[in-house]
């Protein structure tokens, strides 16, 4: 069992969730509520990572973040950070390919909130922060759960993009998925099996939790007649 790779994966997944949730909340709310027709293009762009081969995504990230790119040079000069084959680069890649997994559940959650509740909060005089904490957050909570779980599990399992952007540097970019690949290449089937099983169990629990959250989300918020 490669504990370094597992902890790196967990660290990457946690950081991705922490950074992606606020963005997903903001963007999900915007898509759910804006009347702008061109939002369809934003939605489509945000779903791209779902259909593009990891190699395409990885290639563009490599080009975009590499030392020859403006972004890569800027990061190098300003912070002395290399964006490719480093944890920072891996995190950026992870953020990009996880957008649909974070955005979709949050957007659905916001779409499930009846517009009249938002309007009622406005008429009740709630500030935008109060509307977010007292109305939005409790109502989209299952969506947040679902987004966090899906993003976390998906980051643990991502292989292609990670390999393209990060390579396989132990302790820096070698995630558990890459470590499994290396184990198999080295004919260490026992190690590969142990790590694969761990990943499989984590993913299974995560998806079950996500389903549970979305079931709760799917429940009607207000049955018409309940009590006498």
């Amino acid at each position, binding site marked *: 069992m490669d504990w370094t790779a597992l902890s790196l994966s967990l660290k990457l997944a946690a950081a991705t969730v922490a950074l992606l949730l606020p963005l997903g909340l903001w963007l999900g709310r915007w898509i759910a509520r804006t009347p702008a027709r061109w939002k369809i293009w934003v939605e489509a762009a945000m779903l791209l990572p779902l259909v593009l081969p990891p190699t395409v995504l990885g290639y563009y990230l490599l080009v975009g973040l590499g030392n020859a790119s403006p972004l890569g040079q800027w990061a190098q000069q300003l912070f002395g950070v290399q964006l490719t084959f480093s944890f920072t680069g891996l995190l950026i890649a992870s953020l990009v390919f996880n957008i649909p997994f974070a955005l979709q559940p949050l957007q659905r959650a916001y779409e499930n909130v009846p517009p009249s509740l938002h309007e009622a909060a406005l008429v009740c005089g709630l500030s935008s922060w109060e509307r977010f904490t007292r109305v939005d957050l409790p*109502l989209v909570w299952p969506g947040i759960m679902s987004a966090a779980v899906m993003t976390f599990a998906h980051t643990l399992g991502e292989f292609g993009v990670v390999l393209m952007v990060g390579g396989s540097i132990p302790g820096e970019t070698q995630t558990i998925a890459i470590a499994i690949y290396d184990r198999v290449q080295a004919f260490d089937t026992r190690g590969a099996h142990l790590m694969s099983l761990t990943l499989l169990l984590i993913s299974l629990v995560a998806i079950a939790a996500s389903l549970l959250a979305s079931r709760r989300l799917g429940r009607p918020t207000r049955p018409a007649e309940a009590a006498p």
Partner: protein
Amino acid sequence: MSLQVRIDQTLPMRLSGSFQCAPGQLVALVGPSGAGKTSLLRGVAGLMKPQNARISVGTACWCDTGQRLFVPPQQRNVGLVFQDYALMPHMNALDNVALPLRGPQRLARAQEMLRRVGLTPEQMQRRPAQLSGGQQQRVAVARALVREPAVLLLDEPFSAVDQMNRQTLYALLAELREDIAVPMVLVTHDLNEARLLADELVVMAEGVVLQQGRADAIHRAPRNARVADIVGIANRFDGVWLGPDAHSPAGTGWLRWGAGNAALRLPVRDKGRIEPGQSVTWVVPGEALRLCDRSSAPASPDQALPLPVEVLTLRHLGDVWLLKLQGVSGPRASFQLMLTGPQARAYAPSESLTLCLDLARVHIMPIKTATGTLTAALGG
């Protein structure tokens, strides 16, 4: 602190007209669905930003597009009862009502308000899903009133509750009204509800405010045929306004009813608003029609015009009889009559009767043209 609303927009939907509502007064916006009633209400609440509008309450101006002024709904202090109540599903009744309140006394005030609308302490702890439709509505009303709003807006609040609950809620609203000294605006498509609850009606159609006034005044004198249609005036007839001549008494003119030999010339009040020769629609309120036995022709508007009729259909609706009659001479128009008291009896189909039409109650209006009447309606 009366509410003054003037609005004029073409996009995204047509909405134009104006209305006023005094403190403590309840005005009902009525009209067919799609008339723009809810949109107008949303404009007052600030949930819709109109193209051109001026909305003010007392000295406070909430919207003046001429001055580029638009106060957002959070800062307007309106109480709005939504059609679907819009209660927060994750909060209990008490927290829902306390939502607009600030400060340490908020829960106590919410509790007091809920008690006034008739919820028990146990029901206050329930979430909306655990309350009946009628109870949810009471919570919605309590939330709208708890902050002592500058205006109370009700968007078809009774449409989702059954008839029995509706009656008790009418009573509740009537009771609460005694303590509310702010303008109240009710949106409804139910005319009976509007007449029952409101001091004044604002009649709307196709996004345009057609007439504002007391229900009986609108019934007596609808501004045009569309208004007569919307408020359900059954006895509506076509004619031509001939105007006064040498034989007509002062202040009266002639209305030609029907065509050719069958036409009648009726002496009716002349308000000097219609050009002679113009085609008109005219109405009489229900109480201006009664069964009688006279047969002399009237000479002045103070008299009743006897019309020979026969019974078309007769329907028994509880305590009243709905009688449909057909004229057998003259313009051969059909009439609708509600009978109560001694006149109410089972008339036989085709039975011959005499109907007296009180000419003093005849109200004449121009036939609605696309814009002409509208401008007149808005201008007046």
